[in-house]
C-alpha cells in the first residue's frame, strides 16, 4: 500500500514532466516514422508499411522523376520570398516604430489580418484576382503570394527588436562623426540584426513548407510540397522521406552549431 502511495506521489509531483514529455513524443513521433521509413523498401507504390531495411533511397535521393526539380524550385521560391518579405517587412517595421504618421490603425490592421486569415481564404481570393487579371499562374504568382503572407510575420519579428532598441544609440553614433549611412550600417543594423534574421528564417520556413496557398496559385508548376501532395495520390516514393529526414537533421545541426558558437563566444567575452 505504501508502495502504491509513493508511486502516486511520484506521479503527482512529476505530472508536468510526464505530460510534457508525452506531448514532445507526440510531436516527434511522425519524424521518427519518417526517418525509419526512409530506410524501407516498400513492395507497392505506397511507403506506409514496413517491409525490409534498405539504403537504396539514401543512395539515390533524386531517383524519382521531378522530385529534386520541385525541391530546387521550392528552395528558389523560398529564397526570393525571404528576400522580398524581409526587405519590405523591415522597412514597414522601421516606419511603424520610428515615425508617426496618419492612418496608423489602418496600417496595423492591414498587417495583422493576413495572420488572422485561414490560408484557404487568402489562397482562393488571390486566385480570383489572378484569374480576373488573366495572369499566367506559375513561379511569379507563387512568389507574389509567398511574399504576401510572409510579410506580416517579418514585420512582427523585426518590430519587436527595433522597439527594444535605444534610439539614443543612433544619436551617440552621430555624435561620434557617423553620418546617416554609417550610423545605419555600423549601429542600427547590427543591433536589429537578430530580429531581421529571425523574421527571415520564419519567412523561409513558411514559404518552403507552404502548400495551400501555393496549390491554388501554382497553375501547373510543382513545388516540393505539391509534389508530396501529388504522390500521396499516386504513390509515395521513399525519397520523400529521405528529403524530410535530411531537412530535419540539417535544421537541428544548424541550430546546435549556432548555439555552440554562441556559447563559446559568450565564454570568451566573460
Amino acid at each position, binding site marked *: 500500500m505504501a508502495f502504491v502511495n509513493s508511486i502516486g506521489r511520484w506521479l503527482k509531483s512529476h505530472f508536468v514532466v510526464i505530460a510534457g514529455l508525452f506531448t514532445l513524443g507526440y510531436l516527434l513521433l511522425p519524424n521518427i516514422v519518417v526517418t525509419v521509413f526512409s530506410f524501407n523498401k516498400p513492395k507497392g507504390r505506397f511507403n506506409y508499411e514496413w517491409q525490409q531495411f534498405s539504403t537504396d533511397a539514401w543512395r539515390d535521393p533524386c531517383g524519382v522523376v521531378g522530385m529534386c526539380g520541385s525541391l530546387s524550385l521550392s528552395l528558389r521560391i523560398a529564397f526570393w520570398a525571404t528576400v522580398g518579405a524581409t526587405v519590405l517587412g523591415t522597412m514597414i517595421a522601421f516606419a511603424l516604430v520610428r515615425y508617426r504618421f496618419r492612418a496608423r490603425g489602418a496600417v496595423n490592421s492591414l498587417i495583422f489580418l493576413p495572420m488572422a486569415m485561414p490560408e484557404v481564404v487568402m489562397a482562393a481570393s488571390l486566385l480570383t484576382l489572378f484569374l480576373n487579371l488573366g495572369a499566367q499562374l506559375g513561379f511569379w504568382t507563387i512568389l507574389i503570394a509567398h511574399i504576401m503572407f510572409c510579410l506580416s510575420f517579418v514585420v512582427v519579428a523585426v518590430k519587436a527588436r527595433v522597439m527594444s532598441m535605444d534610439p539614443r544609440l543612433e*544619436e*551617440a553614433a*552621430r555624435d*561620434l*562623426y*557617423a*553620418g546617416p549611412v554609417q550610423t545605419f550600417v555600423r*549601429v542600427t543594423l*547590427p543591433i536589429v540584426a537578430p530580429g531581421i534574421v529571425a523574421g527571415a528564417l520564419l519567412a523561409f520556413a513558411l514559404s518552403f513548407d507552404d502548400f495551400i496557398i501555393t496549390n491554388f496559385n501554382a497553375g501547373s508548376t510543382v513545388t516540393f510540397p505539391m509534389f508530396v501532395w501529388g504522390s500521396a495520390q499516386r504513390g509515395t516514393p521513399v525519397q520523400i522521406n529521405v528529403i524530410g529526414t535530411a531537412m530535419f537533421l540539417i535544421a537541428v545541426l544548424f541550430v546546435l552549431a549556432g548555439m555552440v558558437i554562441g556559447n563559446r563566444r559568450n565564454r570568451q*567575452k566573460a
Partner: protein
Amino acid sequence: MNDMTLEKAATVEFRGLRREFGPTVALDGLDLDVRPGELVALLGPSGCGKTTALRMLAGFEHPDSGEVLVDGQDVTEVPAHRRDAGMVFQSYSLFPHLSAVDNVAFGLRMRKVRTAERRARAAELLDLVGLGDKGERFPHQLSGGQQQRVAVARALINHPKVLLLDEPLGALDLKLRRQMQLELKRIQTEVGITFVHVTHDQEEAMTMADTVAVMNGGRVEQLGSPSDLYENPRTTFVANFLGTSNLIEAEVDTRSGDGIVLKAGGGKLLLPEARCSAPTTTGGKVLVGVRPEKISLTHADAAGDIPAGRNRITGKIAATSFIGVSTQYVVDSAVCPEFEVYVQNIDRDAKLAPGAEVVLHWNPAHTFGLHADQSLLAGTTGSAGVGTVDDEAAV
C-alpha cells in the same frame, strides 16, 4: 579638422534659442555664454529646457529660432555628425554589440583612423578613466559606474571642443555618484576642455561646476559661481531651488548708511543695500530672505544675551527634527508661518522644544533682498507655483 585646433577648449554661446514642442515652450529665448575650459552646469527642474539646450548644442535638436555658436562660429545648421562635441548620455547608450575598447574607438573608426592607431588611442583613454584592464568587456559585463566611464572615454576620443553631459550620474547610487563627481572633475582638469553638464541635482551642480546656470521656464534664471548663487540669489526661484530660504514680505522704511531698514510684522530688519536686487524706494515692498543655517536660536528667556545689531524675529517652535550634524527647527512667527532654522549640534539647549517661545537672530550681512512681485514658493519642491510652470513646460 586638424588635431591642433581640436585640442583647444572652446567657447559656447546660446543666442535667443527658442523651441516649442506643440503647445509646450521648451526654450523661451535662452541666452548663455560659456567660457573656454569652464565646467558649466545647466541646473533646473524637469521641463525647464536644460536637456533641449544641450541637445541643440550636440545637434540633435534644431531651434525654432536663435543660434548656437561654438568658438564664435554659428553651428546651428551643422548636422550632429559634423560637430566637435562629445556627448555622454544619461543612460550611457553604449553600443551593445561592441566591446568597451571598440565603443571608445568608434569615433576614430568613423574618421577612418587606422586600426592599430585607434586601438592604441582607445586604450589610452580607457586608462584615463581607470578602465585600462576592462577593454575587452562588453557593456553588459560592466557595472553602471564602469559603463559611465566608458561613455566618457568614448565621448572624449575625438578631442571634442566641448563635452556634453546629460544627467550623467542619474542612474548611479549615491555613493558612486559622489565618487564619479570627483572623477569627472579630475578628468576635466586633465583634458582641459569645456564641459557643459545638465543636471537637476543642485548638490551635484554645486560640487562640480565652475559656473551654474539655473534654468526655469526655458531661460536662464541666474548665472554665477555656486557660492555666489547660494549667497546672492536674485529670484525666489533660485533662492528656493538652491537649498532652502526663509522669505519674508517687508516694506522699505528708512536708509541707514549702506543698509536699508525694513518693516516686517512689528519689528525691523536690516538689509545691506548691495545684497538687494529690488528697487528700494521708501514704502516699497521687498522680499527679505535668509538661509536657515545663518540663523541662531535663543530661548525667549535668554533674549537679553543676544548681541545688539542683529536682525531678530520672535516666534514659537512648531517642530524639531534631529539629523545628526544639526537639528532642524520649524518656527511659527508673525512674519513667516514656517521659518526654518538649522542649528549645529554643538551645545544643545534642552529648552528648545516644540512650543517654546524663541528669538531668531542673525547677522544682517546675511540677509538678501528680492523683488516683491514674485511667488514666495517658486522653486520649492512640490509647491503649486513650480508645479504649474513645470507642467506647462512638460506638456
